[in-house]
C-alpha cells in the first residue's frame, strides 16, 4: 500500500499548489476522492459528505446533457405518432379486447379512429400526424419509441415511475438527482439540474417532480421560476445589490479567512468560503443565461418566440438550450396542469396542445443541431402515459375524448447517442398495448444512464441500510437497439462502486 499513500500525498501537495490552476472547489473534491478510493462508496465508512464536483464516468459517455420536454397528461399516440389504419377502419365498432379504464362512468368500448391524417416524413419515412408539422419535419433526427409501457393508468403513478423508478412511490430521487450524484456538475456558476415551470402554474404532482427524495437537497432540481425572482434567494433586495453586496461578501470573506486560519484539517470551512464565491458567480451567470435578447431574430423565430401561442414555451425551450450551453447537466420543462389529458373534446383540445409545443420542440432540436450540440445533448419529448383507442363518451362526437392508457404509448428522443431517424417498438393494431420491443420507464432510465456513461446498477446510494439504485433493483435493460453502436464498454469491473 505504501506507494499509493505516497502518491496521495503528492496529489495533495500538488492540488494545494494549484499547479494546473484547479480551483479550490476542484481541489476539495479531489481530496475527498482520496477517501472514496480507499473505501467503496456504497458502504460509507465515514460520515457521508456530498458534493457536486465532476466525477469520473464508468465509461466514455455520448451524452453530456439532457433536456426533457415533459408532456403532462398523456399525449394521444394514435393521433400523433402511432398510425393505426385498423383502428380507423373499425371506427365506431365495439372493441373486442379488454380495456383498462380510469374513468368507468364514461367508459365505452366504441373504437375511436383518429380524425387526423398521417404520412411518412424524411428519409426514414417515419409516419407522423398532421398535428405535428414541425416535429415531423425533423423526423430524421428523431428516435421514436412506440412501445412504452408503465402498466398503470394514473398520472402520478406513472410520472413517479418515469422520474424516480417505482410506480407511484414518493420520496425517491428524480433520475436527474442520480445523474448529478453520479456525474457531478460541469458548471461552477449555475445549478446543474434546473426545472423550468410553466407561468400558468405547477404541473401535476407539483414539487415532487423535482425532489431529490432520500438524497441530500444538494441534488434537488432548482426551479427557474417564470417570474421574478427567477431563482429563489439568488438576488439581494434592490437596496443591497451591486457594490453593497460586494462589500458584504468581501468583509465576510475576510472574517472567514481569519477564522479558518485558526484551524487545520477542517475542509468544510474552505468549502463554505468557496460556496459564497459560487453564489456570487451564480448571480451573474444566471442573469446572463436568461437573457434571450442576445439571441438573433432568426433563432428566436426558430422557437416561435415571435408569435402566439408558441411564445412562452418557445422562450423556455430557448432558455433550456442556453443553460445546457453553459454546462447545466439537466433541464426539464413542465406544463401547467395536463394539456394532453384529453378526456373530452379531443377534436379541439389536442390540436391546441400541439400548437403550443410543436414548433418550440422541433426548434430546439434544430437549434442544437445547427450549433453542433445535438450530438452530446439528449432531447426527450413525452408524457407519462398515452391514450386509449376507445371513446370516452362525454355525450356527442364533438365532446368525445380518450381515457388514460399506460399499456402502450409513444415518446421520442433526439441526440446524445440515440439513433436518429428510426421508430422502435409496436403497439397492437388499435394502439392499446405495447406488443413488440416493450420499453418501461426503468429501461428508459437505464438507457439514459448508459448514454451518460454510467452503469445504472453500479451507481448506488446508501440509504436506510440499503443500497439504492435509480431503478430500485427492478428489472431494467439498456435498449441497445435505439442507441448508436459504440465500442463495447467494460461492464463495471474496474469501477469503484462494484467493490
Amino acid at each position, binding site marked *: 500500500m505504501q506507494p499509493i499513500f505516497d502518491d496521495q500525498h503528492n496529489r495533495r501537495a500538488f492540488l494545494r499548489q494549484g499547479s494546473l490552476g484547479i480551483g479550490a472547489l476542484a481541489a476539495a473534491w479531489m481530496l475527498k476522492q482520496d477517501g472514496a*478510493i480507499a473505501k467503496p462508496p456504497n458502504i460509507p465508512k465515514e460520515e457521508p459528505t456530498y458534493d457536486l464536483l465532476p466525477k469520473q464516468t464508468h465509461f466514455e459517455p455520448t451524452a453530456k446533457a439532457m433536456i426533457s420536454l415533459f408532456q403532462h397528461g398523456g399525449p394521444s399516440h394514435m393521433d400523433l405518432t402511432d398510425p393505426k389504419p385498423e383502428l380507423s377502419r373499425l371506427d365506431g365498432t365495439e372493441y373486442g379486447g379488454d380495456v383498462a379504464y380510469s374513468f368507468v362512468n364514461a367508459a365505452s368500448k366504441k373504437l375511436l379512429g383518429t380524425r387526423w391524417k398521417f404520412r411518412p416524413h424524411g428519409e426514414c419515412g417515419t409516419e407522423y400526424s398532421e398535428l405535428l408539422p414541425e416535429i415531423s419535419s425533423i423526423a430524421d433526427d428523431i428516435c421514436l419509441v412506440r412501445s412504452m409501457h408503465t402498466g398503470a393508468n394514473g398520472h*402520478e403513478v406513472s410520472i413517479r415511475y418515469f422520474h424516480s423508478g417505482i410506480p407511484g412511490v414518493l420520496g425517491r430521487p428524480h433520475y436527474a438527482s442520480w445523474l448529478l450524484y453520479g456525474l457531478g456538475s460541469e458548471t461552477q456558476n449555475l445549478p446543474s439540474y434546473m426545472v423550468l415551470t410553466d407561468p400558468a402554474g405547477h404541473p401535476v404532482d407539483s414539487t415532487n417532480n423535482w425532489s431529490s427524495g432520500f438524497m441530500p437537497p444538494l441534488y434537488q432540481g432548482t426551479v427557474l421560476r417564470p417570474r421574478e425572482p427567477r431563482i429563489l*434567494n439568488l*438576488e*439581494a*433586495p434592490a437596496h443591497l445589490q451591486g457594490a453593497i453586496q460586494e462589500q458584504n461578501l468581501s468583509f465576510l470573506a475576510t472574517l472567514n479567512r481569519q477564522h479558518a486560519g485558526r484551524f487545520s484539517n477542517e475542509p468544510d470551512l474552505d468549502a463554505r468560503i468557496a460556496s459564497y464565491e459560487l453564489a456570487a458567480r451564480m448571480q451573474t451567470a444566471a442573469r446572463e443565461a436568461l437573457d434571450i435578447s442576445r439571441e438573433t431574430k432568426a433563432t428566436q423565430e426558430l422557437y416561435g418566440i415571435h408569435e402566439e401561442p408558441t411564445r412562452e414555451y418557445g422562450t423556455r425551450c430557448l432558455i433550456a438550450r442556453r443553460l445546457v450551453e453553459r454546462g447545466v447537466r439537466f433541464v426539464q420543462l413542465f406544463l401547467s396542469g395536463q394539456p394532453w389529458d384529453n378526456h373530452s373534446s379531443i377534436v379541439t383540445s389536442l390540436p391546441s396542445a400541439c400548437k403550443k409545443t410543436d414548433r418550440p420542440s422541433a426548434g430546439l432540436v434544430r437549434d442544437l443541431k445547427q450549433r453542433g450540440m445535438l450530438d452530446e445533448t439528449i432531447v426527450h419529448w413525452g408524457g407519462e402515459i398515452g391514450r386509449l383507442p376507445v371513446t370516452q363518451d362525454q355525450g356527442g362526437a364533438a365532446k368525445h375524448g380518450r381515457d388514460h392508457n399506460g399499456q402502450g404509448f409513444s415518446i421520442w428522443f433526439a441526440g446524445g447517442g440515440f439513433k436518429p431517424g428510426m421508430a422502435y417498438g409496436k403497439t397492437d393494431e388499435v394502439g392499446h398495448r405495447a406488443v413488440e420491443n416493450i420499453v418501461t420507464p426503468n429501461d428508459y432510465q437505464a438507457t439514459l444512464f448508459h448514454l451518460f456513461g454510467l452503469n445504472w446498477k453500479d451507481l448506488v446510494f446508501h440509504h*436506510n441500510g440499503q443500497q439504492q439504485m435509480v431503478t430500485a433493483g427492478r428489472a431494467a435493460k439498456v435498449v441497445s437497439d435505439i442507441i448508436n453502436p459504440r465500442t463495447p464498454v467494460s461492464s463495471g469491473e*474496474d469501477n469503484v462502486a462494484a467493490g
Partner: protein
Amino acid sequence: MFSRRLAPLILLLSCQSVLAQEPLTFEKHIRPIFRAHCYDCHGAEAELKGGLDLRLVRLMAKGGESGPAIVSGKSDESYLLDRIKSGEMPPGEHRVPDAQISIIQQWIQQGAKTSRPEPESIGPGLGITPEERSFWSFQPIQRPEVTDLTSLPPQARVRTAIDALILKSMPEGSAFANDADRRTLIRRVYFDLTGLPPTPEALETWEQDTANDWYERLVDELLESPHYGERWARHWLDVAGYADSEGYTNNDSERPWAWKYRDWVIRAFNEDKPFNQFVIEQIAGDELAGPQQGDLTQDQINLLTATGFLRMAADGTGSGANNAEARNQVMTDTLKIVGTSLLGLSLQCAQCHDHRYDPIPQTDYYAVRAVFEPALDWQAWKDPNGRRVSLFTKADREKSAELEAQTKPIAAERATKLAEYMQQALEKELTKYEEPLRTQLKTAYETPGNKRTAEQKSLLTKNPSINISPGNLYQYIAESKPKLAEYDKKIADIRAKKPVEEFLRALVEPANHAPETKLFYRGDHQQPKQSVAPASLLVTAPEGKRPEFAANSSDIPSTGRRLAFARWLTNGDHPLVARVIVNRLWLHHFGKGLVNTPADFGKLGVKPTHPELLDWLADEFMQQGWSVKQFHRMILRSTVWRQSADKTSGTTASFGRRKLQRLDAETIRDRMLAASGQLDRTLFGKPVAIKLDDTGQVIVNGDQRRRSLYVKVRRSQPVAMLQAFDAPVMQTNCEMRPTSTVATQSLMLMNGEFTLKQAARLADRAASEAQPCSDDRLASLPAIPKPTASQWACGYGAFNADTQKCSFSQFPFFNGNWQGGEKLPDGKLGWAFLSRTGGHTQSAEISPVRRWTVPLDGRVSIAGALHHGSPNGDGVQGRIVSSSQGLLGEWTARSGKAETSVSEFEVKAGDTIDFITDCRANHTSDSFTWTAKLTYSSGSNTVTLETDKEFQGPAESPAQIAGQIERIWQLALCRSPEPSELSLAMSFVSQQIDTFRSRGTTLPDKRTPVRQAMTNLCQALFSSNEFLYID
C-alpha cells in the same frame, strides 16, 4: 482523472494482502459472499434451485442437477465459478464483484478448505455460524480494565476513564490538545446541551466566576435548563421519525396530536428519565398503564403518550389508502424505526429473505413482527383516528352535556320565533293574491313537499314568491335575520364554554387480541407461510438460548409481548442496546460516533474506532442507572471533550483535538433569533404553522419566533431554510444527518428574507443596548464618515396663532420613527410620532413638527400633500409656518387628501420652516402621511429637497457606532471583537455609509444609511463560519 485508475489497483492490493495473510476458509471468507449473492435460491429455503445447496462444501462438491459445483483444487473445472464469471449467476442485475470472484477462485484453488469438519446433517435455513456469531457487536459488553487514573502523571491530563482509553489508542507520545479557553468552552457547553447561545451577561458571569468548580456548576445549571430537553429531544425525534403529518399518500394529512409525544420526549430528557424506562414506556406504555377505569390518570396519560413512538411511521390508512399494502407498510416502517433506533441493526433487510450480510434469518424478522402484531394487526386495522385516545374526563363530558342542555330551550325559542316569522311572511305575501288562488296557494304551501299534487307543485312554481323558506325569510321580513342570529349567538356562546376534547396519538393494544403472525414469502403479504412466535433475535443470545416471549400474558389484558420485548432490550445483558445508545450520545457530543454508522452495527456498518471505550461507556451508562444526564456529565468532564480545536496544540489522531461542529439547521435559526433578541422561549405545545410564501418556498408562517423544534414537520412541505441545512425530510426516520455545504445555503444566508430580517433586528437591538466606545479605544479606530450636518429635525410643539410661531422640542427616541419612547402611547408624548412619510398627532400642545433650518438666503416654493386615511375621526390639520413670516398655509384633511402648496417666498439663513400637524378636536384615528418637495434656490443653485428623503435618525457618533459593533459581536458571536476586528468592521461600516449616501439609494422603512450598514454587518456575522460552526 486518476482516481479511477488507482481504484482497481488498490482493490487488488488489498485482496492480495488478505490472501497473503491467512489461508481462505469457507466459513470465514466464502460464506459471506454466498450469503450476499446466492443463498436466496441455494440454501435459505427448502426449495433448492437446480438442486444445488451451497451451505456446505461437501454439498457443493456433490453438486446439483448440473453436476458438481466445485472441484477442489481446480478452479478451472468448477462450474460454479464459470456461472458466476459469465454473469449468468446470480440471475437478474446483481453481479458478484470481481474481487469476490477472485477470492472464490483462490479458495477453490487452495483446496476449498473449511475451518472445521462439516456437520453430518444440517437443519433448515442458514443457521448462524460461530464466525457470524463472533461478530463484535453481538458479543457481550465487556468492561475493560482502566489504568488507575491516579497513577498517571498530571501532564497526561487524564481526568476520566474516557481520557485514559482514548489516550491509549493514540500513537505513542501523543498528547491531548490544550483545554479550550474558558469562553470557547462556555459557548460549546451551551450549544451542546441547550442548542442556544449564552447571553452576553451569562457569558460574562461564567467567565468571571473564580470558584474552582465553575465548570461543573455550569454543566449542572445547563442540564437543569428546560432548553436542555428541547435540544436532546430533537436528536431522539430524528431517529424516532417524528412528523406532524401522515405521509404515504399525496394528501399527507396532518397529525393533529403528534406534538404531545414530542413534548413527552422533551419532558423525559428534562426529568432525566432513566433510558431503560424511556425505552420501555415508548415500546409498551399501554401495557404498563393498565386498563382505563373512569378517567385516565396522569400516569396513564404519560404512559400512553410515550407509545406515540410506535405511531411515528408514515400512515396512509386514514387518508385514502386503507388497504393491505398501506397497513403492512406501517408495520414495516415501525419495525425499521425500532430496529435502527434501538438495535442498531438493519432488521428491515430481513423482511423478504434472510439478511444478506448479518445473521438475521427471515424468521427473526417475523418473530419481532409478532411482538407488534397484536397492536398493529393489518387484518383488524384501525386508522389513525380510530387509534386516538380521548383525554375527555367524566367531568368534561358532564359539563359538555350540561351546556348542551342549556342550549335546548334557546333553540326551542328560536324555532318558535322562526315559525312565527314564517307565518307572518306567508300571510303578508298571500294578501297579494285574490281568492280562490289565495287559498289554493296556502294549501299547496302548507302541504309537505312529498305530498303535494302535481297541480300544487305547478302552482308553486308559477308563483315563486310564495316559496318562503328559512333561507330567504329575511327577504320578506328584514328584522328576522338579526333577531334569529341573536339566538344563534347565544347558543354558540354556550357551546364555546364546552371543554375542548383533546387526544393522544398512541398505540393501545386491544384486550384479548393475539393474532397469529405469518412469515411472508418474499415479504409479500399475499403469500403467507408458516406461523412465527414472538421472540428475540437469535444472534443476540448464546446458541440454543434464545428467549421467546409468551404469546399471551395472563397478568394483563393485552398480550404483554411488547412489554417482554422492551424488558429484554433493557435487561442489561443485551449486547446492542446500551452500545447503540451511548454511541448516539457520543455522536451528538462530538459530531462523530465511535461507530459512525449509528443505525447499523452490522457487517455493512463500520467497526468501532474505540471498541474498549464503547464498552466501557455502555457498561458505565447502565451502572449509573441509565441516567443520560450523568452520561453528559461524564463526557463533558473529560479532557477529550474539553480540548481546543485550534491547530496550535493536539494531534490529528482521532479525538486528539476538537473537531468543529456545524450547527444543526434548527440551531442556526434559533441562534439568529436569540441574537436578534426575538426568540420566544415558550416551551411545548401545538406546532407552529408553516405556509408557502409567494415564491413557493415553505416558510414559517408569519412572525413566529418559537424554537425550530416546534415548527410543524409536514413530510411533504419541509421548511426551506431547515431543509437546506440538512434537517431531515421524514420518509421513515433519520438515522444520521449529513452535513452538506452548498451554494443554496450561502444564497439563503446572503439574500434570504429570514436572515435579513433577523439581521435588521439585531442591528436595532444593538442600537438600543450598546454603550458608546471609550475615547481612548476609539482613537485607534478608523474614522466613520461624519454625518452630513442635518438641516432637518423631528419634534413636537404647538402653533401659537398670536405669535404666528411654532414651539419645538426634539423627540427623544428613535426606533426608525421619532417618538416619545420605546412604546406607544408614551407616558408623556402619547401617540405622537413622525416617520419618514407621516406620523400621528396627540394634542394641540403635542403636535408633531418636521423642521427645516434654512442654510443660506434664498427663495423656496413648496408642493406636497397631506393625507388622512382613516374613515373615522375628525381628521388632522396641517400648517406650514416660517419663523420669520409666520403661517404660510393651513389645510385640513379628513378621510382624504389636501394639496399643501405654498408659492415661492423668501427665506433667510437660520429661518426655520415647520410642518406641523395637529389633531383638531381629538386624536383618534389620526394617522397621517405628509410628504412635500421644497424647491430651494440660493444664488444660481436650485435644489429640490424631499421631506421623506431628508428624514434621518439621530446622528450616531463614531463612539456609538463602535459601541454598537461591539454589542453586535457579543450577541452574534458570543465574544467581543478583537481590536483588529473592530477596526475592520469600522472600515466596513464606513465604506457602506459612504456608498449608501453617494448612491442615494432608497432604503427600507426605518433604515438609515448607518442602520442599514449595521444591518449588513449583522448579516455578515450570521453568514460567517464562526457563527455556523462551534469550535
